[in-house]
């Protein structure tokens, strides 16, 4: 599958990654090459095959409904670029 610049731009927007226009062509080339390469899977017949979503089949123990965490606001906020009064702060979201 050859991706055009517009598709790459759309995917980049979906992934929230700014790609300078100057790089779009080269990137489209790289991605197209990789996608074309992985399309060799088209040759495989997977009729009736269940997709493999998990490697382990052991049923893992679940968590009990106990409060064992939280109450560590300072640790939660310590690495944040911007905080105020215990909140994370981001540029205003326009609703």
């Amino acid at each position, binding site marked *: 599958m050859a991706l055009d610049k517009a598709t790459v731009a759309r995917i980049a927007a979906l992934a929230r990654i700014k790609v300078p226009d100057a790089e779009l062509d080269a990137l489209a080339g790289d991605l197209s090459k990789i996608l074309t390469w992985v399309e060799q899977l088209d040759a495989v017949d997977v009729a009736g095959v269940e997709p493999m979503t998990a490697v382990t*089949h052991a049923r893992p123990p679940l*968590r009990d409904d106990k409060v064992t*965490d939280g109450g560590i606001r300072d640790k939660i906020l310590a690495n944040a670029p911007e905080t105020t009064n215990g909140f994370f702060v981001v*540029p*205003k*979201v326009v609703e």
Partner: protein
Amino acid sequence: MSNLVKGHTGEWEVVIGLEVHAQVISKAKLFSGAATDFGAEPNTQVSTVDAAFPGMLPVLNRFCVEQAVKTGLGLDAQINLQSVFDRKNYFYPDLPAGYQISQFSRPIVGKGKVVLDMPDGTAREVGITRLHLEQDAGKSLHDQHPSKTYVDLNRAGVALMEIVSEPDLRTAEEAGAYLRKLRAILRYLGTCDANMEEGNMRCDCNVSVRKPGGALGTRCEIKNVNSIRFVMQAIDYEARRQIGVIEDGGKVVQETRLFDSGKGVTRSMRSKEESHDYRYFPDPDLLPVTLDPAWLAKLKADLPELPDAKKARFMRDYKLSAYDSGLLVGERESAAFFETVAKGRDPKLASNWVTVELFGALNKLGKTIAESPVSASGLGDLIDLIADGTLSGRLAKDVFAEMIASGKTARAIVAEKGLKQVTDAGEIETATDAVLAKEPDKVADYRGGKEKLLAYFVGQVMKATQGKANPALVNELLKKKLAG
């Protein structure tokens, strides 16, 4: 009654489906050990898992699974022994991981149903499409700063049940009845507080209109309406709006809308317009959820009696009307209250006192049954005083009012005010003679055939005895004397 809405090109059918987000009652979050309590200081109930720190992993809360399955059983729904958690990918500041862990293709609960009791006594069955478990997001505060948004992750990761109905609802009234019934079921089960005002039950409404029997129209989704009243208003407004658009030759655009409770209108959420591509895929951090059939059977066996079953039992065992039974089972507490009052007493009398006198008084006070100043046994005692003839129905109402006001017991009030009903024939006879002596001409009229005057004489005697005389005895005596 007709479910159709009149437009100037004729009648329209409104098609409504509801998506309810019900917050699961649990101590800890769906995938972390942080607390779920409401109203804590910002970011104090957040673990490094909830804040999606590097290398943090989700581990499923067993109890939340149990709550979802219980709810599924309460909705008479298919329980899926294998279900899968998927990632719903999108960027938002209060969604720390950049994806919400939800269930997409394989939810834990499948098709079920809810039965509505309509005000006119009829019943309506509404299909449930599915119920799935998912994480709540955090809270974004947009009004704290002119150019910034503040983010609190306390709610991030709290367990929600998304309950999706079939588009089976046809009127705002039905939608209201559906939400009330769903609320009752969730509360009976103890799986959700179902308090829309507090936000632990939220509703998205899918509304479309069509000519009766025609093909489904384009639907609009009204997001996050936060009270049953508003849901009903929003649906009525939206239906009218869509009919207007079509009748004016326009087309309804599929979109997400918001209900403005102040203006009572819905408006388009342009910001949500850019088409989403959520890139759902099975969460590789979580293995499929597998339920043990034995465990499921036990859960089913231990399920509490639900509103519909209770209502049927009240009608069958207490011989109450469908309407009264419906009123009594609306809340688990009122049903329990009634059963305590009715124990060893006349159930119809008990039902009347609870549904008419008690509910009426509580309404005036704006109190819930749990906050009632009169206890079930207290009301029972009052009814006993009527049964043993101590109080007439009329006196009993006065006593009840006093009980509500003061919280005193019926017996205390009777003793205090000497309200004990007079049943001594001698006393009543004196009073009767006195009344008749005062009104010779009315007595003559009565004897002349104006038998309606009997009621007047009874009233006079009751007045003379400050209402304490036993009305039955008074009647009997008067008839005898007037005949004589």
